[in-house]
């Protein structure tokens, strides 16, 4: 029986504006889930404002890397992509303190951002998809920090150890004498994330297209539409759909708002999240493990929008397995 370990790392990502920090991840087992606690120590001056999803904007990029150019997690834009992917997986039950606009502080504000790789987010040790840390070298998590202005006007995020991102590792570690083949007889599944951004121009009939990543099995895609000002928006697109150009099929073409409201219902969201929803590829493939694109070529599958306002951005976080 392997050991199921959970431990918080002593080293954190310490906030310093516009810096990149690295935390070395342990190489003792198979990492199934990493809990991230984002603590922001904020001083609010008079006349302050708070931007939408402010706390997640300050994490400009996150990557989990290992020697040999191996990337196990990445997101662009900022952590809003990551956060809303989590919101849909955890039914909106993610701790997030409310950052005030009234003068005050300094005070701590906490935000919980899990990274769960497997199919069952409620099973912390779901070993179906893992980062095989024990077989890797130089495994690190890298954060690109933003600036205080990402939170809002007249907000100061205090550095010097007061604001940080803390990691708790959840892993399956084999006992002496146990072999990988005992628990992963067919090998293990590895995560692959791809984050993309496209500037929106007005396009009719699902004309704004994204060629989804191929070569693996596509599990989830988080779609996030932002205005030119960077605010989530439902007025950038009127339709969303999936196209298979080679076989001349459009298995899904539906209006944006019904799709958004449907996502709220399907993933038990506490409120409708404007401009953002999770697309589970199971709805196209009817396979709970996603859409198998191992033999597909780029352009075979397109996640497309009918866009009705120019200037904003079409952001995606693709999650594939292979």
């Amino acid at each position, binding site marked *: 029986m*392997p050991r199921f370990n959970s431990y918080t790392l002593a080293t954190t990502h310490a906030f310093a504006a516009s810096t990149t920090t690295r935390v070395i991840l342990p190489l003792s087992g198979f990492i199934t889930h990493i809990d991230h606690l984002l603590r922001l120590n904020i001083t609010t001056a008079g006349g302050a404002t708070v931007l939408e999803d402010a706390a997640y904007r300050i994490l400009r990029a996150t990557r989990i890397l290992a020697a040999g150019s191996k990337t196990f997690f990445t997101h662009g834009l900022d952590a809003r992509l990551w956060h809303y992917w989590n919101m849909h997986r955890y039914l909106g039950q993610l701790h997030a303190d409310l950052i005030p606009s009234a003068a005050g502080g300094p005070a701590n504000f906490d935000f919980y951002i899990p990274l769960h790789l497997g*199919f069952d987010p409620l099973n912390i*040790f*779901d*070993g*179906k*998809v893992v980062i095989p840390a024990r077989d890797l070298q130089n495994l690190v998590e890298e954060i690109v920090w933003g600036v205080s202005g990402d939170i809002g006007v007249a907000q100061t995020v205090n550095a010097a150890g007061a604001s940080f991102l803390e990691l708790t590792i959840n892993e*399956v570690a084999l006992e002496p004498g146990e072999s990988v083949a*005992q*628990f*992963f*007889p*067919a*090998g*293990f*599944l590895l995560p692959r994330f791809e984050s993309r951004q496209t500037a929106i121009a007005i396009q009719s009939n699902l004309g704004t297209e994204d060629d989804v990543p191929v070569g*693996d*099995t596509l599990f989830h895609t988080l779609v996030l539409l932002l205005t030119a000002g960077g605010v989530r928006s439902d007025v950038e697109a009127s339709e969303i759909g999936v196209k298979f150009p080679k076989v001349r099929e459009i298995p899904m073409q539906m209006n944006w708002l019904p799709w958004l409201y449907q996502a709220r219902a399907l993933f038990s969201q506490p409120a409708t999240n404007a401009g953002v929803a999770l697309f589970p590829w199971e709805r196209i493939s009817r*396979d709970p*493990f*996603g859409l*198998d694109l*191992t033999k597909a070529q780029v352009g075979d599958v397109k996640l497309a929008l009918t866009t009705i306002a120019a200037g904003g951005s079409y952001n995606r976080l693709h999650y594939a*397995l*292979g």
Partner: protein
Amino acid sequence: MAGLDQVTEFRAMGVPVGGGAVLAAGMAVADAAGAVANKLAGSQIGAAAPAIGQILAAWLFRQRIVSQFVGDSTADVLSMVSAAAAIDSLVGVRALTRQVLTSVGVPTLSAGPRAASLGQTRVSTMPQVFRSEVQRKATLTRL
């Protein structure tokens, strides 16, 4: 010792290895005898034809001209195998025994060990069909 008796009576550390080999060969001979009889008289006497063919083979192996040719011990083994095949054809002794063993929890071998060791046939593994490689890996993961 005449004929094949040198082979039949060969023992290694007391184990009748030669007898076993002749026994295995005799099964094929008994099967062939049953098949020939079935072809000749199967349409007339139905399921009894193979058994009659095998009884005939058992009797033939005990005839002097045959036993002198293959050797007494060899003729005895071949006759015994044919008789066993005939009884099995009529009564189904092997199937009955297998059924009893299964009912008390003893697993039965569905493919020969030789086939298994050569990797030609997998023994006691249910075939599984997976829709994708991801499903295969995820389903087989034991965590």
